[in-house]
């Protein structure tokens, strides 16, 4: 009954063809809607939000769906707002190196378009063919090249955001430097869609580097001290790697067929500079097995790399449970975390593939196996990381397990500020209710 009402109401707001009743019941990742809407304009987004806000309905927001298993404690909201049809480039000012796009545009569509102009968005999220710019920003997703180029908060310069009451606000501007008023962009980046629906994003661009190489150093002995001392020497030299990512033996085995701890070090600059830096590594002291990928070969490596994380759009076909974690830690403690992940693999009879950036302190851990073992390993790893002063966020896990183990870990001491922010902007909990830290 209720579903029928929502359907009728929504069809009065936006064209009928853009409103669909969900056929499948019970998605194992949750974050579903009884009814799915596909707005094609900002005004439509605003009218849907306003309707929900005024009628006690709640909304789950989705882009490409790659992060469907990231946070959220309910199987279904009243409405699933899909931004997958609200896509496309609005404005690209080549000379200013700024780009304005609609949120449902996939990352790959953006990069392919920009490549024609030798420009790029300097983020490197997982599943670029599926992940949308809106989702990447809402989840503040970054990859190994964060070391060289920063994260979404360093890239986004302006947005338009639809508030739960239907008001549309602009944040920032289409300029690369701006301190007029509060830096409202930051509020929405990483907010997991709990404050507003991003309806437009402006990012600053970078030139595609003239040359690129990837140095892969595998350490057969697996001696962490040896890796640590190599990394410290590299970081203390005036080299400019854009990634300095440590891969666990299991992940290294999957990607390059070498079951050792491996460092993936990227250099992106003019050719002379890239060669100079490759030589620096070749000439430095280490007992690692080295291979160097150049230009297109590097892209093939990264293309594969960006598909290692579980993809929320894929249906689970076997009984194996997959989980993914984002871990933040003091930079060099990444060594300890990746090692611990490796150790937990055998201790829990799981496949655990992990990588972490030694220059930026973020790790990603992917676990596969029986659900009890996965949950046990997450708890053990979280205990280990928290002792070191870091945090563990679960970025992918089936709904039933998310209800057992807290996705976000311990609440920060200033949680009351987050809660007040939410209730100020979304007092009726219309958007992505319980998707974020502390049940926000």
């Amino acid at each position, binding site marked *: 009954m209720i579903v029928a009402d929502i359907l009728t109401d929504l069809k009065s707001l936006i064209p009928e063809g853009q409103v669909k009743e969900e056929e499948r019941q019970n998605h194992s990742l949750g974050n579903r809607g009884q009814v799915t809407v596909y707005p094609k304009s900002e005004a439509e987004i605003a009218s849907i939000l306003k309707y929900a806000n005024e009628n006690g309905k709640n909304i789950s927001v989705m882009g490409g769906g790659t992060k469907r298993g990231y946070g959220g404690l309910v199987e279904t909201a009243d409405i699933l707002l899909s931004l997958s049809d609200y896509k496309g480039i609005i404005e690209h000012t080549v000379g200013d190196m700024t780009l304005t796009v609609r949120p449902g545009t996939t990352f790959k569509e953006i990069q392919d378009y920009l490549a024609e102009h030798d420009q790029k968005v300097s983020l490197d999220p997982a599943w670029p063919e599926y992940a949308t710019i809106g989702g990447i920003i809402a989840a503040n997703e970054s990859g190994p090249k964060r070391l060289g180029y920063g994260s979404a*908060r360093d890239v986004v310069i302006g947005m338009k955001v639809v508030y739960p009451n239907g008001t549309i606000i602009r944040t920032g501007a289409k*300029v*690369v430097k701006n*301190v007029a008023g509060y830096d409202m962009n930051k*509020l929405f980046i990483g907010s997991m869609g709990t404050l507003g629906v991003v309806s437009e994003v402006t990012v600053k661009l970078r030139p595609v580097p003239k040359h690129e190489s990837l140095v892969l150093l595998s350490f057969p002995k697996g001696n962490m001290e040896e890796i640590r001392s190599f990394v410290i020497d590299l970081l203390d*030299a005036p080299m400019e790697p854009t990634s300095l990512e440590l891969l666990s033996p299991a992940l290294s085995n999957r990607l390059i067929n070498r079951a050792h701890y491996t460092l993936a070090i990227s250099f992106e600059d003019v050719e*002379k500079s890239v060669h100079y830096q490759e030589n620096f590594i070749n000439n430095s002291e280490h007992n690692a097995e080295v291979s160097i990928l150049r230009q297109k070969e590097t892209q093939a490596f990264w293309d594969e790399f960006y598909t290692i994380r579980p993809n929320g759009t894929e249906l689970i076909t076997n009984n194996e449970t997959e989980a993914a974690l984002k871990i933040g830690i003091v930079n060099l403690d990444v060594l300890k975390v990746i090692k611990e992940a490796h150790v937990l693999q055998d201790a829990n009879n799981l496949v655990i593939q992990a990588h972490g950036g030694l220059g930026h302190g973020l790790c990603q851990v992917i676990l596969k196996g029986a659900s009890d073992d996965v949950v046990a390993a997450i708890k053990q790893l979280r205990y280990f990381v928290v002792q070191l002063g870091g945090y563990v966020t679960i970025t992918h896990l089936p709904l039933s397990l998310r209800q057992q183990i807290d996705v976000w870990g311990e609440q920060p001491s200033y949680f009351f500020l*987050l809660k007040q922010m939410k209730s100020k902007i979304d007092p009726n909990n219309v958007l992505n209710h319980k998707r974020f830290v502390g049940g926000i």
Partner: protein
Amino acid sequence: MAVKKVKTKDKHIKNLARIVESPRSILYHEEDLISYDCDGFTLHRHLPKAVVFPKDTEQVAKLVKYCDDNELPFLARGAGTGLSGGAVPLNGEVIISLVRMKRLLQVDLENRYAVVEPGFINLKLTNSISDKGYYYAPDPSSQSCCTIGGNVAENAGGAHCLKYGVTTNHILGLEVVLPNGEIIEIGKDGVPDRPGYDLLGILTGSEGTLGIVTKITVRILKTPEAKQTVLAYFDEVTDGSQAVSDIISKGIVPAALEMMDKTAIEAVESASFPVGHPRDIEALLLIEVDGISAGIGEQIEQIMEVCNNRNVREVKVAQDEEERGRWWANRKTGFGAMGTISPDYLVQDGVIPRSKLPEVLNRINQISDKYGLRIANIFHAGDGNLHPLVLFDARNPGETESALKAGTECLQVCADVGGSITGEHGVGIEKKEEMRFVFSDDEIMAQTDVREVFNQKSLLNAGKLFPTPGRCVEVKIETKEAASV
């Protein structure tokens, strides 16, 4: 015991003195307060109730709690170099000066971060770690005296933020005293992306209206292996601005890309750091490239080629660090240099999309003609951050008012082309009304909602940042009077 020496009947001053534990840590006599009636924005002045100098976070928290309990308005102040009036005690605030909290608490080179107290001077951080090959990137022109706490409040920029970003891109953690005296710590140990809304991002650049920062964790960077600096002189402004676009579209990301026009050159050449720029050129570009030594030569060649294609009169590369240093000293003291060619000047801080540079410079010229006032332009051309300097003489009746109007019109032009009214100086008192050029009522309300989450009672730094309905005219008249004193 010492507290007995505080001679006043005001019980609040006595109590505040008790919190800071020494009569030497509080000022309350009018003659002492005068130096605190404004900051780097001198057109608007007001005496504070008192100035207190806490020595640690605990004292700051106690002072704030006292003010909150007793409904006393208060604000934080660093070195007072702010250019938009953010530290002006509009409401007779108790000023909490953070200059005595100036310790460098921790440097962790391996993990690339440092922890400082808010009163620590920007340049001192780089000086403390440069021997080991590291530096702190944000470099506002006032870096030899401004504090990192103030940089956080204003989200300070600088000449080198084109490549390396502004303050917000380098802040990893903050300890903050909230307006009710509660202490919170965000981003402990510099661990990135802790779950929750990005309060670091909101606090940075909030101009001291959300809380008082008492400890700051900043990212430090490895000093680039090499840097080279190019100076190019142009006979036409449009050639100079085209060269800017050409350099960027070659895929070069310069560390800095600065421009000065003829009037600005006249000023810097008459001031303390002349370097012999020709007086008859229309524009100069100061371009710096840094990075791996092996890759720089090629980029410099490309830059020289671009300049030559744009009819440059002369283009040269700094031959050594000494020459490079002189070029930068000449540029970084540009604002102050205006004093040599004009009794008064007013600096603006608009931002435009880089491609609009020729159009905007043209319109600024028209504004200059309209008011009969010279406008010098010094700007961070690479990121489109303009600093039009309106030259005037406050002794001439009406000229201050004309200068203010001209400055405001320059900002309107920036807003018209899709830019912003401030790139690094902040809104403060100065550009409160101009906020309406870029934000709707809803957008301003979205921001005041954020303020209310932190600062419900509005005792902390009230009357800044946001336009007050109906107050526009009042403020302008007041500033004019103050300026003509």
